[in-house]
């Protein structure tokens, strides 16, 4: 890493299209300042985020993965986020168990009205990732 | 060239091998495997679950890297193994006999430069099996011996406190010459002891294939035998028998993409197994070997028939790994004997 380009964590963010993706749009149109480190991927529902997506993002070099959905009770599909909560809890536990920094995986509930919260979630995530440096444990490119 | 080496001077011999990286079996995480020779290697291992075949034929080999900007021609960068000199200590004679077989495959028709480049800098220092390392050994029935030098550069024989060191090839002689004064001249008594130990090793009872010479014809006659499915009934279709085999050489080639804009990646060779259903499955879904029985037949026929028809020798060296490590007890000796006995 050269001095001119300080390390910037790269985040892959899986955002549900009904709430969190709309929330991120709101942050944008409201001109709320937040770091541009996250690459958003819109998904139908947080419940559809397979653990495979998270592992794959880390394998391809993401420094952190964010999954964000509707608040409990607000899921467009009634209970998708309840499934996400359970399934991704296991992912979180497994990563930590293997000795991967727990900060590298994060979940949030962000509604379409919470542009400011979305910005804060990303801001916090970037700041928590920065001291960890590049993610090289699951990254296929850094053997 | 023959000599004696004090066992506790083995480390000094290794240290004297200037320019060579040395490897020897070590026990780590509960299993034996070939590791960079540590401070004080002791050759007191049973056979390692994994043979030393990965030295010349690693499980993963990058052929070349590619990079392509959309709309432009791809750029290919060949990757060649760096030239190294590596010497592997403690190779059992069965694994030694695997070496010329692998050499044959990778030089037949055309030379495989990747295999050859690694093989060129490799030397094998074998260890005679004074007693069989496992009850699953059957080297003698397939033309081998617990004291075979085939494929080895040097053969060590354990004399208790010392090794009897015998060069097999010119490379082996060079390795011994590097030892200089560490090696002592053997006397008549030691030579006699080696002869006695070797004779005793050969006399140890072993199970085995009943008539290996007849196997190609018998397996041919038994090709359509219903016994194949019968014998494969418990098979779970894993790759243990082939991945642990010292002579199995089948591989896959795939493009591994690491970036898309621009396209970046590597073309990679990885070990593959005839026991996996996707090994022979066509894109159309048609699979010429679509049952466990047909895949067992392929593995066993390759070892005891096709290889013999092509190269005049059996591909199996009787190390017994596919027997001892099979999760469900599929036993190549029994398979050959039962098929042969049925025709």
């Amino acid at each position, binding site marked *: 890493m050269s001095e001119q380009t300080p390390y910037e964590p790269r985040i892959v963010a899986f955002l549900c299209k009904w709430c969190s993706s709309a929330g991120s749009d709101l942050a944008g149109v409201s001109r709320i300042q937040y770091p541009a480190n996250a690459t958003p991927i819109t998904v139908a529902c947080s419940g559809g985020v397979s653990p495979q997506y998270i592992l794959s993002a880390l394998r391809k070099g993401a420094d952190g993965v964010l999954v964000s959905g509707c608040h409990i009770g607000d899921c467009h599909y009634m209970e998708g986020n309840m499934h996400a909560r359970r399934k991704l809890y296991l992912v979180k536990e497994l990563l930590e168990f293997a000795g991967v920094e727990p900060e590298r995986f994060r979940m949030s509930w962000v509604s379409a009205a919470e542009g400011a919260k979305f910005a804060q979630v990303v801001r916090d995530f970037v700041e928590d990732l920065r001291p960890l440096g590049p993610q090289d444990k699951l990254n296929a490119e850094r053997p | 060239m023959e000599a004696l080496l004090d066992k506790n001077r083995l480390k000094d011999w290794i240290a004297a091998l200037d320019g060579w990286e040395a490897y020897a079996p070590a026990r780590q995480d509960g299993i034996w495997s070939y590791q960079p020779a540590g401070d004080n290697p002791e050759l007191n291992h049973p056979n390692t679950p994994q043979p030393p075949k990965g030295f010349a034929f690693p499980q993963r080999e990058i*052929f*070349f890297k*590619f990079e*392509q900007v959309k709309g432009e*021609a*791809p750029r*290919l960068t*060949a990757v*060649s*193994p760096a030239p190294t000199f590596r010497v592997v200590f403690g190779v059992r004679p069965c694994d030694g006999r695997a070496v010329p077989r692998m050499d044959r*495959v*990778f030089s*037949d*028709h*055309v*030379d*495989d*430069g*990747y295999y*050859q*480049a690694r093989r060129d800098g490799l030397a094998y220092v074998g260890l005679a099996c004074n007693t069989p390392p496992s009850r699953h050994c059957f080297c003698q029935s397939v033309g081998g011996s617990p004291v075979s030098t085939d494929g080895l550069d040097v053969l060590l024989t354990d004399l208790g406190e010392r090794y009897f060191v015998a060069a097999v090839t010119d490379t082996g002689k060079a390795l011994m010459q590097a030892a200089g004064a560490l090696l002592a001249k053997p006397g008549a008594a030691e030579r006699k002891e080696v002869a006695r130990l070797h004779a005793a090793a050969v006399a140890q009872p072993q199970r085995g294939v009943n008539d290996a010479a007849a196997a190609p014809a018998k397996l041919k006659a038994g*090709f359509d035998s219903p016994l194949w499915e019968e014998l494969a009934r418990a098979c779970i279709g894993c790759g243990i028998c082939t991945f642990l085999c010292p002579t199995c*050489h*089948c*591989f*896959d*080639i*795939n*493009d591994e*993409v690491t970036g898309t804009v621009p*396209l970046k*990646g590597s*073309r990679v*060779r990885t070990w*593959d197994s*005839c026991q996996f259903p996707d*090994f*022979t*499955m*066509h*894109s*159309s879904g048609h699979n*010429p*070997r679509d049952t466990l029985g*047909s895949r067992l037949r*392929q593995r066993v*026929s*390759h070892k005891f*028939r*096709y*290889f013999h*028809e*092509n190269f005049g020798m059996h591909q199996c060296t009787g190390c017994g790994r596919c027997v001892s490590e099979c999760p469900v007890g599929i036993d190549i000796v029994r398979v050959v004997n039962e098929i042969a006995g049925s025709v």
Partner: protein
Amino acid sequence: MGDNIYLPQLARVAHIKEEVAGERAIKTFRLEFDNGGGFEHECGQCAMLSIFGRGESMISIASSPLIRDYKQFSIMRVGRVTSAFHELAVGDVVGIRGPYGNSFPVDAWRGKNLVFIGGGCGLAPIWPVIQTAVAQRADFREITVFYGGRSPRDIMYRAELEKLRGAVDVHLSVDKAEEGWDAFCGFVPANLMAKQPAPDNAIAITCGPPIMIKYVIENLRSLGFKDEQIYTTIENKMKCGLGKCGRCNVGKDYVCVKGPVYSWAELKELPAEY
């Protein structure tokens, strides 16, 4: 390290023709090499084509060895690599290594009658032989081509086949009758029986779906063709093309080296693992 046998040459797509549309689409590609590149081949040989990032696929060379300017491949869209080929545009660059495999013993067939029997995309592997024989028409006696597809839209090389008429007897067929089709309706083996080519001093070369080949061979034998007079090609999944990766074997033979061309006399001795 010596020659890198796994490193492809680069070739440019010079021409693309859509032969057959639909789910089993076939396109024909002409690949040209830049200065000094390329290789010579014989009738029946194959080449390993690459689309980087997708992988490799073994495809028969469908142009005659007499053509030096380009190599032609007719590729059916089946899987990962072949689908990527169907996405290519003229000017795109692909990888190619070869030639691989044995060839049809064309020289030994001079002075003989040749009967070609193809079905579906099975016309491509025998096309170089047809092209060569027509180019050297005087060296051969009667040449007959039987070829069929499921429907008129599945007939590949349609225009080229029409051009052969005069020099060659062409008998086309489709599996199912359809308006506007006035040639034979029915399967290829049936068309063969309807025309009854004579076995004397003849060689029959067939390629197509396995089930077609099976009945063609039965019918040829009933017409009096001997096993040695019947040639076909077989295919298996391939990775290396060099007899090392171990998957395309039929008995002791690696098809990528000892095949793909076999006389029925040879092939019937091998296990049917293809």
